């Protein structure tokens, strides 16, 4: 069991964390530099993952916190790359990140296409500590992937 203290486990903590996140873009600068990515693409990923209230999810927030941290893990590289590709596809189709139902309508196509382009299974996108912390949200194949 992980001993990480994320401080974003309740809905109130998650919303407060998100609101604080958008006060500046120091996280975007840091992640872009750390993972050798374009600032604007990381900024787009931040908007894609966290601007829409309906889709806020503690799992994504914890992956973002890991991306901001000093740690390096393959899952975070996979996660960031996945979200860059997928959010870019959605932007090119002119779907607003705030439009929940339109996002849902195209997700299965864009998600499948993105994983094929990355040549990755979905379980490669999440850090083992995040999977452990959210054990009841991930199937057995996620739990077994990093072992």
């Amino acid at each position, binding site marked *: 069991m992980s001993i990480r203290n994320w401080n974003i486990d309740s809905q109130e903590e998650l919303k407060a964390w998100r609101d604080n996140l958008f006060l500046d873009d120091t996280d975007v600068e840091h992640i872009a530099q750390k993972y050798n990515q374009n600032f604007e693409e990381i900024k787009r990923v931040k908007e894609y993952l966290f601007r829409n209230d309906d*889709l806020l999810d*503690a799992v994504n927030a914890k992956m973002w916190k890991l991306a901001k941290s000093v740690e390096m893990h393959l899952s975070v590289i996979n996660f960031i790359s996945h979200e860059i590709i997928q959010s870019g596809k959605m932007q090119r189709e002119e779907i607003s990140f705030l439009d929940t139902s339109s996002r849902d309508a195209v997700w299965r196509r864009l998600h499948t296409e993105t994983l094929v382009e990355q040549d990755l299974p979905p379980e490669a996108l999440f850090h083992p500590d995040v999977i452990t912390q959210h054990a009841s949200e991930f199937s057995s194949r996620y739990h077994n992937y990093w072992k």
Partner: protein
Amino acid sequence: MLNKDVLDKYVKLSNGKVGRVIRIRSQLRGKVVEVEVNPSDNEYKYELAALDKEQALTDARFKNLLHIVEVIGEKITI
């Protein structure tokens, strides 16, 4: 339904497809499941569905989501 009632289980979705629940997303709007299906040509491998059928049918935030019609079990029996 609880997470443990569907996670790793095969389910039938409202579009008639059958697949295995590989992940449950706890979003602020409610729980959404990711289901891996066996796609035929021109179909996609992953589907999103609401965990709560009532929410899928009545909540505008779930307008374009499927819902779970039936939990089949651990394996598909033909």
